[in-house]
């Protein structure tokens, strides 16, 4: 595979700058109940219907850790090839806000549940490793709704207390494309693990983006700005693009960059200062005295490790080895667990390589057109495999296969049934073909003579006639062979 070169730089008059990016991703843990209470976590309920006395911080209420959320964090940590800490501590992060009932968020500060790990990205210029600094568990806040009433703010506490994993990357990302690949890879890993649904529209995955710039070759990092709470990859990329250019302009003008927290305005496509370092909250972190330190037995970690599903990086390697796919194909086919499952089902029943080609071509194009995903594909894996096999065995040609495919999409029918009922089967009987070809040659004696006299271009004309006569069903390869043989004679 030809490798492109990394080329995301910003050219200023005083030099060429590279962009340094680190992400703090907030991923909502997939669990039935909240991190410290039994309330449901289901999305889309009426406001304040999934709120316990604990979530709304009534006097005397105490948090009790949800073990499933702990396991999900450990699974995610293992999926990120990270160190799982047997000892971690829940801290209180203190600040006042109307949608924060306790007046503090329970989070993990000095002792997170997961330590350093790494994520592998496949970029056009090769694979790149992004370091993970840590992963910790914390509570989500409620939601303040400012636009329901002109003079009041409404608060919905359904989200209050839902478990989040904050996944902090090292400042290893260098371009909006890498951010895109990183977020997608994180999402893929967590979906494989079943630890986060990665649904950005529902807010299950959001990120704070840290951006700084420095001249190419500089060893030291520049001053960073943090862009808070961006909830789509596109907006992250736009925000980085804007922010990096803003910082370069400041430097080019000989100005300094202030370390600050900024907001991304999606309408104006710009970042705006939210608060400077001096105004930063003093969160007065301290260990939550209502909760004991979280001690994980090594056996629990080992058991979770054993029960992990095959993860995308391993699956990709296996697809290359087992199915003879190239790296690109394997990458695409492992990008979603459901896609890889579909592919494996198809590959079990048909030609592995041809299945990959047809999936990534016609199947994906059709799903894309119809706005569907693989789990609600109108063509079942079994039917798709039969189609691939029909092509491979020569029963139908590629051209006919496209027609069969269309009918399968509309009807959901089995390809064999379609081929038979519509008589679309390829003519591969040499005797029949010879008969047909002889008929055509005898009707077109003048052209045969011209061909023999050297006008070889006419070969295509004969093929065309065969196809016409056979209704497109003549096996093209056999047709070619027989034609050549008979024209020589």
């Amino acid at each position, binding site marked *: 595979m030809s490798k492109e070169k990394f080329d995301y730089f910003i050219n200023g008059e005083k030099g060429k700058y590279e962009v340094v990016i680190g992400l703090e991703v907030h991923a909502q843990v997939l669990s039935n109940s909240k991190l410290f209470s039994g309330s449901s976590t289901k999305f889309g309920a009426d406001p304040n219907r999934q709120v316990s*006395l604990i979530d*709304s*911080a*009534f*006097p*005397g*209420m*105490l*948090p*009790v*850790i949800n073990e499933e959320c702990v396991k999900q964090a450990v699974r995610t940590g293992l999926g990120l090839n990270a160190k799982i800490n047997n000892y971690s501590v829940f801290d*209180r992060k*203190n600040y*006042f*806000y*109307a949608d924060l*009932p*306790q*007046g*503090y968020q329970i989070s993990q500060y000095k002792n997170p549940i997961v330590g350093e790990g790494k994520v592998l990205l496949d970029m056009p210029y090769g694979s790149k490793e992004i370091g993970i600094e840590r992963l910790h568990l914390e509570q989500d806040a409620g939601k303040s709704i400012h636009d329901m009433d002109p003079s009041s*703010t409404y*608060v919905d506490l359904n989200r209050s207390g839902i478990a989040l994993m904050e996944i902090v990357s090292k400042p290893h990302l260098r371009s909006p494309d890498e951010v895109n690949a990183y977020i997608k890879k994180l999402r893929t890993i967590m979906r494989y693990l079943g630890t986060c649904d990665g649904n950005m529209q529902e807010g299950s995955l959001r990120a704070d983006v840290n951006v700084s710039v420095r001249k190419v070759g500089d060893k030291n990092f520049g001053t960073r700005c943090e862009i808070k709470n961006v909830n789509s990859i596109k907006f992250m990329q736009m925000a980085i693009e804007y922010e990096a250019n803003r910082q370069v302009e400041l430097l080019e003008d000989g100005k300094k960059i202030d370390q600050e927290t900024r907001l991304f305005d999606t309408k104006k496509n710009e970042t705006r200062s939210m608060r400077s370092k001096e105004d930063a909250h*003093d969160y*007065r*972190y*301290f260990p*939550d*005295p*209502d*909760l*004991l330190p979280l001690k994980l037995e090594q056996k629990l970690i080992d058991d979770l490790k054993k029960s992990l599903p095959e993860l995308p990086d391993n699956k990709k390697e296996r697809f290359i080895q087992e199915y003879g796919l190239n790296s690109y194909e394997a990458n695409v086919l492992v990008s979603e667990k459901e896609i890889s499952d579909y592919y494996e089902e198809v590959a079990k029943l048909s030609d592995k390589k041809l299945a990959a080609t047809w999936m990534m071509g016609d199947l994906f194009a059709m799903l894309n057109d119809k706005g569907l995903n693989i789990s609600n594909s109108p063509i079942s894996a079994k039917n798709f495999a039969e189609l691939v096999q029909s092509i491979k065995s020569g029963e139908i040609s590629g051209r006919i296969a496209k027609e069969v495919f269309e009918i399968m999409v509309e009807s959901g029918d089995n390809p064999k049934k379609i081929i038979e009922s519509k008589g679309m089967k390829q003519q591969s009987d040499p005797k029949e073909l010879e008969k047909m070809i002889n008929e055509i040659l005898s009707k077109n004696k003048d052209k045969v003579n011209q061909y023999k006299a050297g006008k070889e271009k006419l070969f295509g004309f004969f093929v065309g006639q065969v196809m016409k006569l056979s209704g497109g069903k003549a096996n093209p390869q056999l047709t070619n062979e027989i034609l050549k043989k008979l024209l020589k004679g």
Partner: protein
Amino acid sequence: MNNITNQSLSEILESIKSKKISSLELTQAYIKNIENAKKLNAFVTTTFDQALENAKKFDNKPNNEQLLSGIPLAVKDLFCTENVKTTAGSNILNNFVPSYESTVTKNLWNNGAFLLGKLNCDEFAMGSSNETSFFGNVINPIGDHLVPGGSSGGSSSALAADLTPATIGTDTGGSIRQPASFTGTVGLKPTYGLCSRWGIVAFASSLDQAGPMTKTVNDCSIMLEAMSSFDEKDSTSINKKKESYSKNLKDNIKGLKIGIPKEYRVDNMPKEIDELWEKGKKILKDLGAQLIDISLPHTKYALPTYYIVAPAEASSNLARYDGVRYGYRSQKGKDLIEMYENTRSEGFGDEVKRRILIGTYVLSSGYYDAYYLKAQKVRQLIKKDFDDSFTKVDAILTPSTPSSAFKIGEKTNDPVSMYLNDIFTVPVNLAGLPALSLPAGLDKQGYPLGLQLIGKALDEQKILNIGYAFEKNCGYKNEIKKWWS
């Protein structure tokens, strides 16, 4: 019959079980006492109708198999009680009616008791004299000018004045033992985690512990047995088998080793406290216990450590009282921040504000290491002092307080001298240990004084046994003239 209310809980239980008195008669007797004792200001809320109904219900279908069969009880207003206003002595919760029952009170009701009313206390249990309550100060039945101690001052006053046969308090730095000592009653702070904190308005989570306040040690063991339990809803609750403290109560303490810590002989301690301590030692020695001098070298750091840790936790625990979801909300202010400021300015009293400020300060960045972190380290050393001593002794004997009950208003303008009142009780909370305060004598003014027995973690039975033996041989009797009625 007439004097039923000045009997001990165990005597009253006998009368109920033998049908000498009905639960209704008993309840009516207490209601009468309470109505005659309004001057003491011990109650924030009374639940007479509910109590009478429960008493009748019991009498109709008496179940005498329970620990607290047919017993009306008033409890500190820090315990959340279902459908009964729970104020924590604060304006900010003046209108708060919980929809839930604290685990500890639920345990009492499950053992046959029922609620008589909610007892006054220092605001959010922050105080040593019950003078910080939004509902006014409580008066000690010992004398109309005396504080009942705090923060469970309503509890100690009501108990000593025969307004409840027994009661419960909470103890964060001495809030059960000091008021018990000031009123000549028995108070136990159990091992941290023995009684669930679920449903108790929090002051300082790592120190708060509910416990019984009673007239006798036997009563104390009955109440402890009834109120303690493992509770999955409290992550710091200890998972252990329930003990039958009252059944196992023994007065033979021969051969037990009692530690006498030299660091508890503080400067300027009144001579009579020293004499009381000597008296206590002699009683235990005469009972066959062995006295052993021990050292708890970090004791002198306990009070400053406590006044960092407790306010730090309180500053965070009290953040939820913001006027948004329940409780008092100021009508002044044009935005969220002003609403918070006005609500909390008007809702909290001075002592609570003082501790929130101290707590916020010691947790702020730049000060955390110097104060909070250091205090946590010292706390470990204090705990280690006790651990080391308990390899040599079975229990430790100290005075409960450095003085008898002081005058109302005497220390209100001097918070440090007020805080010093907790000097003997605070180390126990920092170490998470059980400690029992026993009435042991009177000072020269005739005010009660208490001695404290400190035990190993979960060794409640042993200190109750020692207390039981001590009580029988001490000859202390609370003689209170009912001047208020």
